[in-house]
């Protein structure tokens, strides 16, 4: 038999139809485990395989959709047993029918979602898939079929596991709803960009709907996918009759659609829920004589997250601010592990209009690769902005590209041989885009033509590695006007040469130009305007600089990218009506009252004013703390409610930010009253309560190490030792997770009986807390503060 890849090159391939719905028809109960039947009734599974073979199926899909260690837990079977039996069943059917067919290891979703939506880490998901793939390879399957994915991150874990543990062809399909998104919000172009980038042999769509409803989704995939497209629809729309799901499309109708799609260029066809051997038989007949159809593809140019694509069809702003160079506050936050600060920095840039964020974490004091991983996780939990990994260290780049959910940009490779050899394979493997800097072993060439020559070399080498031209962006390097004034125009000239000669996208870090000169903003935006005129696609700038953003919006109008000036008008139509900016006058000048009323936008001014008259510590102890106490008392008496308490806390927090700066500069003593660790226990992901406690404790100047949610008991112990913490606060909301709370307390007490633990959460009470070994029970956040005062003073 021909290798599958070879076969696919010249043929339309017929898969099989549904397995689960066939089994249900034969009596499998709802909620039962279909994979167990591989062992319990092998003859049943073999019969279904044989039916498909007789109908003309060319690829048998093993009955292993849910055969992962997580789903099989408690079933009495191991993954190894199930996969071995399942492949054997397919083999037996093939023998019995005496028909050649490929055997595909079928891999479905894990059943639990990955972070940030769920609790599985990317690595855990990868390991589950790895086990399946390794066993499938051992049993001799011919290809791997990953299907019914709704989460692109999970699909990525599966494809990577398959790539790294086999050389087999990989088919991957996802499940879309009528709104053209998967349940987790993944868009069609995001799927295509990412799966294609990871190097699957075919991608497509299966399940959820029938061929009629899926047609527009399929059409979109066909128009952009550069790899063969696979299609396995259900036998029409499901409807429930007497508690059973029924599908209504007849084999003949199903087959007619199959033919229609094959003629439009679909290369792999089969069925999903509700289809049976009759559907496949009809499909095979209908496809007789149908030749592989050519299709027109307009390749996607751009980057993405699962839910958002940023096409490079016009100028896109790359935010530069997550970079410790010259940013003391950010460096400090990174060193202290305060990733929340960095995340807020990311959010601010996106709100200001950045469409891609550059992430550079080069600081000698931190473990860059590890921080990069955490940073990416944190950012993608709250933002759907594509990221640009800014590092020249292959280890940092690889770990970032693994963790990142989507298609990223690698910033950067350069013309040096060592750089090309180390970076480009990573870019190819993970399907990223890459920025090439026009410098090499000899440094940055003075002349535009020489920079162009390096750019050409980089593009050629990237192409040799299989990276497509659309994914190579060239940076002609901005020099500083203060030291190399005559070189500025060489950069612009090189940019034009690259645009014309190589036809690739271009990038520039703009702000470099003004280094060492006054009125940097003016130079920056003038240079920006010139670069945009020269054809710059991706300016790397500070998006909080309003005038830079203004220049970009204006250029987009002038170069006819913002068609009809729609975005421009939306951004500026109110400008004329707006009076000259007035500073909001504070109606109150009593800081305590401002905190009580939760006027969080007004607190800054008055705090600064007070600082001119009082030392910071006096403000803390004589105004802020009494105000917070008063709010607490009002809450206790039922006169104030949670939203007011939180607003006060946020207001006080804003005041503290200013006071802390003042304390740092006047060198006064640390105002920390002691350290507390907070964590939502393993298994639990409810963290609003814990975050309220954190805010209040910080208001009272306790130094809080927030370990987040779903925290392993051992991590709590390690962090408690590392930070020499006396008080640990644990939160759990579910009866099912209180067990982990107890386990964490036991681990803490075993390590050091002097650790004191306070617990809180909806299912707990005083007595329950005692029973699981906690020292304190906090009914609410106010209680947590009282406990901290008692333990730490």
């Amino acid at each position, binding site marked *: 038999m021909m290798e599958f890849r070879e076969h696919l090159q010249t043929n339309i391939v017929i898969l099989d139809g549904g397995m689960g719905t066939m089994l249900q028809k034969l009596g499998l109960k709802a*909620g039962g485990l279909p994979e167990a039947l591989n062992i319990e009734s092998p003859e049943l599974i073999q019969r279904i395989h044989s039916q498909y073979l007789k109908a003309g199926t060319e690829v048998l899909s093993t009955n292993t959709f849910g055969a992962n260690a997580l789903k099989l837990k408690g079933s009495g079977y191991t993954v190894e047993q199930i996969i071995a039996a399942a492949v054997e069943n397919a083999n037996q059917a093939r023998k019995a029918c005496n028909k050649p067919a490929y055997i595909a290891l079928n891999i479905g979703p894990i059943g639990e979602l990955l972070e940030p939506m769920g609790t599985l880490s990317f690595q855990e998901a990868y390991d589950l898939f790895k086990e399946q793939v390794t066993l499938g390879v051992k049993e001799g399957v011919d290809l791997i079929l990953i299907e019914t994915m709704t989460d692109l991150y999970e699909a990525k874990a599966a494809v990577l596991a398959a790539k790294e543990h086999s050389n087999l062809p990989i088919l991957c399909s996802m499940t879309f709803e009528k709104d053209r998104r998967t349940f987790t919000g993944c868009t069609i172009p995001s799927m295509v960009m990412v799966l294609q980038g990871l190097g699957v042999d075919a991608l497509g769509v299966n399940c*959820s709907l029938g061929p009629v409803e899926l047609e527009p989704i399929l059409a979109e995939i066909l128009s952009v996918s550069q790899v063969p497209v696979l299609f396995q629809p259900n036998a029409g729309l499901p409807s429930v009759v007497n508690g059973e799901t029924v599908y209504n499309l007849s084999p003949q109708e199903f087959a007619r659609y199959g033919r229609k799609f094959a003629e439009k260029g679909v290369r792999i066809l089969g069925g999903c829920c509700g289809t049976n051997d009759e559907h496949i038989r009809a499909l095979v007949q209908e496809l007789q004589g149908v030749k592989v159809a050519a299709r027109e593809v307009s390749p996607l140019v751009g980057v993405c997250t699962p839910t958002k694509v940023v096409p490079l069809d016009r100028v896109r702003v790359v935010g530069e601010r997550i970079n410790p160079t010259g940013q003391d506050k950010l460096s400090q936050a990174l060193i202290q592990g305060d990733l929340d600060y960095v995340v807020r920095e990311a959010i601010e840039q996106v709100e200001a209009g950045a469409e891609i964020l550059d992430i550079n974490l080069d600081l000698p004091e931190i473990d860059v690769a590890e921080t990069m991983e955490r940073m990416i996780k944190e950012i993608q939990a709250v933002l759907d902005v594509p990221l640009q990994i800014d590092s020249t260290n292959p280890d940092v780049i690889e770990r970032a590209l693994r963790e990142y959910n989507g298609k990223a940009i690698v910033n950067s490779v350069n013309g040096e041989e060592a750089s090309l050899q180390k970076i480009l394979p990573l870019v190819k493997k993970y399907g990223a885009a890459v920025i090439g800097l026009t410098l090499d072993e000899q440094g940055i060439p003075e002349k535009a033509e020489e920079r162009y020559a390096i750019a050409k070399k980089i593009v050629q080498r990237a192409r040799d590695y299989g990276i497509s031209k659309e994914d190579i962006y060239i940076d002609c390097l901005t020099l500083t006007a203060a030291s190399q004034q005559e070189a500025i125009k060489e950069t612009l000239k090189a940019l034009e040469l690259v645009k014309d000669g190589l036809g690739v996208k271009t990038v520039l870090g703009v702000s470099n130009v003004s280094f060492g000169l006054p009125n940097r903003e003016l130079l920056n935006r003038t240079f920006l305007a010139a670069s945009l005129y020269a054809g710059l696609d991706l300016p790397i700038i500070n998006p909080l600089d309003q005038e830079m953003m203004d220049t970009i919006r204006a250029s987009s109008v002038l170069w006819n990218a913002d068609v009809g000036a729609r975005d421009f008008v939306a951004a500026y139509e109110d400008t004329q009506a707006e009076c000259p900016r007035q500073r909001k006058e504070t109606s109150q000048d009593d800081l305590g009252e401002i905190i009580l009323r*939760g006027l969080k936008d007004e607190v800054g001014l008055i705090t600064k004013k007070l600082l001119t008259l009082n030392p910071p510590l006096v403000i803390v102890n004589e105004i802020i703390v009494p105000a917070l106490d008063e709010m607490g008392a009002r809450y206790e008496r039922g006169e104030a409610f949670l*939203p007011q308490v939180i607003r006060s806390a946020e207001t006080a927090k804003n005041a503290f930010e200013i006071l802390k700066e003042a304390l740092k500069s006047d060198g006064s003593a640390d105002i920390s009253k002691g350290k507390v660790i907070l964590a939502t226990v393993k298994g639990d992901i409810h963290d609003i309560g814990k975050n309220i406690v954190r805010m209040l404790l910080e208001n009272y100047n306790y130094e809080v190490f927030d370990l987040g949610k779903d925290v392993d008991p051992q991590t709590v112990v390690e962090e408690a030792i590392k930070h020499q913490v006396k008080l640990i606060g644990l939160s759990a909301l579910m009866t099912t997770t209180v067990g982990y709370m107890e386990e964490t307390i036991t681990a803490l007490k075993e390590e050091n009986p002097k650790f004191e633990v306070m617990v809180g959460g909806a299912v707990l009470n005083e007595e329950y807390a005692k029973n699981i070994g906690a020292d304190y029970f906090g009914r609410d956040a106010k209680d947590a503060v009282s406990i901290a005062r008692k333990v730490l003073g």
Partner: protein
Amino acid sequence: MKQEVLRYLGYNNQLPDEKTSVLVDSCLEEIAGLAEVRSTHRFYEIKKAEGYLALKGTNLILAGTDITRHLAHSSVCLLMAVTLGHKVDCKIRYYQKTDFSRALVLDACATAAIEEACNNVVQDLAQDLLKAGQKLTTRYSPGYGDFPLEIQSRFVETIEADRSIGLTVTSASILIPRKSVTAVAGVIDLDQDLTPPTCLDCRQYGQCHYSKGVE
């Protein structure tokens, strides 16, 4: 719905201050745009056994005295699942980084929204049942009383809520998306007189922050 949101935020018939009131209104509007309500349901014949109920044609067992009592007058029951989708979760995470008050209030609005979505599903089904002279008991969810939370995973698989509405369950039996509900309701005759349960019937009575003014 605003009244419910305020109750989740700890108000007990008191009026909120102006700022809170405005915030709640604005979050209610936001949740209406964020929520992608999806639901699915199935009816099953109940097979009664000692201390538990089995559902015909499934591997699902409804265990515990509370659910047994809840379905005492039913021979058929409804299993339903409803979700608001992932966007809501993501936005609540987002506001926790930028505007915590808003995160808190949006979370409460989402809880009110999922309850309302459940009520809508039940009302629609009740309309259909009416023709057959039947109605539904109140909803009862895994985790209530001694009805074990651990059945979430099999519950979801049984009614195929994973495939039809994208509902998943973590190993600690937490539903994802977070703002989701699974519930059981009994089908009963129209003339069956059941007093709706009050806070006084609940095992959490006396410890709960959310009691409806019966303290």
